[in-house]
């Protein structure tokens, strides 16, 4: 079954089915709660018939800070997927798609230019998900992740910054067809 609801602060006591998975980081409470404090409607989850957590998405809506406006990497008002995770037993049911569509709709409602996210270069499954939903690579962030879950000896891993334009971007100004060729450093992304 598919049933969604907002993520409540007390759900941090129950998110182990998603967070014990190695591709999902567990942060301190400040991280989750600052999202609930600022964008409560963009933090949602899916439950199982017994009420356990099957998946969740954390998102935000913002632009780069104004002091950044002259930078080539300035981001206009957009939606961002900060975390999207589905418990291993609940994968391939469409939960990730349904949850991210919800964020896209919020992006549309608030007239954002696009939705974006970072994904590990090796995470082909997540990439397949996003590509299937109309996202494309906008740029590659070198060494964005400090570790590599597939290779303990590696120093880190690159991220793909993927984007999907929303209605406001009529001319498709904010997407690239050759994003994989655009490399930036972690300090360039905000």
């Amino acid at each position, binding site marked *: *079954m*598919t*049933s*969604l*609801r*907002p993520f*409540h*602060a*007390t759900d*941090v*006591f*129950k998110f*182990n*089915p998603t*967070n*014990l*998975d*190695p*591709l999902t980081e*567990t*942060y*301190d*409470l*400040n991280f989750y*709660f*600052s999202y*609930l*404090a*600022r964008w*409560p*409607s963009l933090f*949602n989850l899916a439950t*199982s*018939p*017994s009420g*356990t957590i*099957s998946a969740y998405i954390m998102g935000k809506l913002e632009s780069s800070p104004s002091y950044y406006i002259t930078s080539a990497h300035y981001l206009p008002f957009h939606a961002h997927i900060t975390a999207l995770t589905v418990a*291993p*037993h*609940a994968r*391939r*049911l*469409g*939960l990730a*798609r*349904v949850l991210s*569509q*919800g964020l896209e*709709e919020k992006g549309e*409602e608030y007239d954002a230019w696009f939705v974006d996210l970072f994904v590990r270069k*090796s*995470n*082909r*499954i997540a990439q397949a998900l996003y590509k299937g939903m109309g996202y494309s690579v906008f740029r590659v962030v070198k060494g964005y992740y400090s570790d590599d*879950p*597939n290779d303990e000896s590696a120093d880190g891993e690159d991220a793909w910054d993927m984007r999907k334009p929303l209605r406001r971007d009529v001319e498709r100004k904010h997407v690239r067809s050759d994003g994989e060729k655009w490399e930036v450093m972690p300090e360039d992304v905000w």
Partner: protein
Amino acid sequence: MDNLQDRQDVPIWNAIEAKNFKQALKLVDKRLAKKSTDYLEALKIYIRSLLPQVSEKSAVILHLEDVVARKAVLSDLAAIELYEDALEEVLPGSREVWIKTIGELRWRCIKAVPKNEDTSLACLQSCLSRDDLDHARQIANSLEKNFPNSHLYIFWNITSMFMFSISPQCPENQRKIWGGLALGQIGKLAAATRQATDMKQLPIRSIQTPQELLLLDRITEVFGKSENRLEYLQDKHLGPESTVAKGEWSLWRLRLKLMTEANHWQDLFDLCGTLLKRARTPNDSNQLVEASFSDWTVWEAYLKSASKLENRGNYNEIREEVEAHLDPACEIDKGWKRNASLAKVKLSFECSASFSQNAPSIGPSDKLSSQPNVILDYLQEYGDASTAYNDIRQFVEVLKPDERSQLMSMLEDNTALEKPQQPTGPVDPEAADISDSRNLSTASKITRAVNRLKLKHLIKSSIPEQERRQSFAETQQFKCSSCANDCGVFCRSCLVQLAEESVQSYRSAISDDGQITKSLLSTDRHPADDFCVLAAMCLIKLGRSNISPHSENLKSSGIVYLLQAMVLLESAWLRSKSNFQLSLMLVRLYSHLGCGSLAMRAYQRLFLKEVQLDTLSYTMFDRISTLHPHPIHDSSGGSSNTRTLIEQLQKQQKLYKTSREHINKNIWLSFKHGSYNSIFEFREVTQKLSHSISAVMSVVETNRIHRFITSKVPAGAIRQMYGLIPADVESRERVLSDNNDYETFPNFESSRAPGFEELSRFIPGPSESRYRVTLLAERIMLIVDPSPELNGERSILQQSLSRHIKQDSTSKVGVKSMTRAEQIAAHAHRAMAIILTESCDQELWLEGDFKTRLEGLNQELSNRLEELAELIGAMETVIPAFQTTLNAIYTAYEVGRSALNFCKYLSTKGKAVHLSQTEASKKVTQAAEQLIRVVMEKCAFIKKGLDEGGWIDKVLESVFPDSQTGSELSLTEAVRKVTDEVFMEEWAGDVVESWKDSIAGFSYIKIPTKV
């Protein structure tokens, strides 16, 4: 030097920074002599708070109280902040004193300068962070009054009043006042929104955001009428459909819930029908933007209202909606289509008769109405998702016995389980044969087979087990409804058969030359893992139901199953390292077998962090002090493994401190962003963390480990204890919050039966009653601890002990939550507690029967110590030492030691203790020494046994015994084939090493030297 106000103060601050406090005092006095200011007064107090003398510390508090009593108004915020810092130095983290002094000063400051917005904001934030809700409420009120154009402050005021009214700080007679005011005010704002003509230009004093709507609902829920809640939610300007609500889904959920509670069945039915229709209707740009209305909550409400209305026509409408959703032309996401299919199953269960007439043809017509067929239909469509089992379980549970058998034979035949090529055509029995479950060449075939096996386990094992558990049969002997053999609650032959089938399926699924693994990320789990998990579950049940005492643990009959479960899980883990459920099960099994270091190895594979340390630490650390209290030796190395147990527990304890800061920070952030609902949720998290059962566990275990290893508890650990144990823990029956996560363990049991986490407990799980008992014991052990460091603590501890004994005069010891050794220990500690309190209470001495009573208590204590010695002495099945053995040994040792300390402590008190205690203490000492001697003898016996060679072979013989026949033999053979010799040798070696490491702790056990 954040507080610097005047350049002339620089030398003072320099002296403070150089820790030259005397000089700082001199300098400040000099400045004060010239001109007295609030700031300089406060600075002086701050410096005094930094001085080490206790007298200075109490002077600080006295001064603060005096400032408040003088009705002083400090308009200089910097002075208040200095006082605040001073108080923090003297009474870190205090709340009550803070509220009475600093909170009050802050509020007076606002009253004096109400138009200073920054000061008001700073003070409000500060009061909120100290949970000083009454002052916060007054400041928020002042903000609203003085800045009437702020929309935000209107809601801050309402939020603060409401927060205060529902908090324990609010006097009972004021609850209604503040709650009523909050309700009244937000009600007016709601009315303004309702009456508005232009939703784009709402007046300042109106509800304008989804979070404000949620606040309205929250307040109305507590102080208003439920019909008002619903009225708001059904209003076009305030309900989920309104512009203000911005599509907030939780408002829809609330509306459906309240309509259900109000029995508005017809309206609910109509609403759900409309929502579901909207979900599948594209908009002008041909998009299904409202698809999320197909949420299962809506379908459930739809079905529930139909069942209440009892009108066949309604069911037909639902059926039409289901079909519209499932129509291939409908482009709604598969996630939502699955809801429609599940609704179809539910519908059929609720009204099979009316639905069967128009059911799609899927087989011979006589089978159409059968509920097993409906289940099979669903499996055919969705069986390749692992959630199919969870979706369908509730329906299987309500089948009648004959239907269950029917479904079982369908599952056995494995017919009609595959997705048909042509969905409407009849199933060709021959084709079904080809799609045999053993053809496990793809992930989806494996998942189908796993689901099928889980269902077989449900029908064959879990449901009947629960029925037997609930039956009133006294003998616990039954005839198995599945195989007709004699059985207990668990049926051995069914479990053996299921385990074997699971193991065989597992083996065939992984023998694919890595084809499936190729398509997976290295962090993915293997789809066949659940075969292994299911097999291990059956083996654990078998192990639990076959416990027969034997002098050597490895020869007792249940052990073979448990070892096989471990072998399977370990070997599955090698292929699927990210499968945390394998690790959780292994932690439990290794702990049970007394392999502390291996349990730790499995636990560390979970990589727990942050709040997970609160929710999952119990899996390893609950009772660690009676499993493996000494440092863990781990041959595998690895940086995180070298961390001591204490460090790991401290890491958990740190979480509670930092979380408090994080939460406070975000409560403020929520105020600033108008996220009112989040504020209340954060407060709930604070409540749960500050009363966490796991925090208590971490304190108790830390102290016990310290005491075991070094014979004393350091002052730092005791400070932690005061910080983490809720102050009100003694005063009420239930205060602790059980945040432990028991749900992440794999569980395929019937939803009516205990979950597998519970079924696999070999020793009682965490419970508030046990922790209360351990806290009492902890207090006693600290009071009688001979180390001089604790001198300062003793009187406080003694007072709290007396309070405890007075409040809780019953001698209740929660039997279910403790092992036998723990129960006896609890009685012994209880006796010590009463003796400690009463033997020094001279008023009681005057009572006529006092002496007899005291003798009785001492007798009880000696008896309990003897009882423990007997228990230890009589333990036979002890080599190698499993958890129950270790638990008894370490528990007995601890009580023995605390009884000895207890006697020594009383003997130092001279005439303050009743005369007769001296004699009684001698007897107690004897009993305690005898207990420790028995413990030491048992330890030596275990050690000698384990020092004898050949344990690796013994382990291997136990996993794969020669003596088996029949189905048990074939199960063993199946397990053997999953592993190889190299793996087995290595694993058995690890197990033996781990046993040896566990008993290394015995070397710490000794009779304390006499003073």
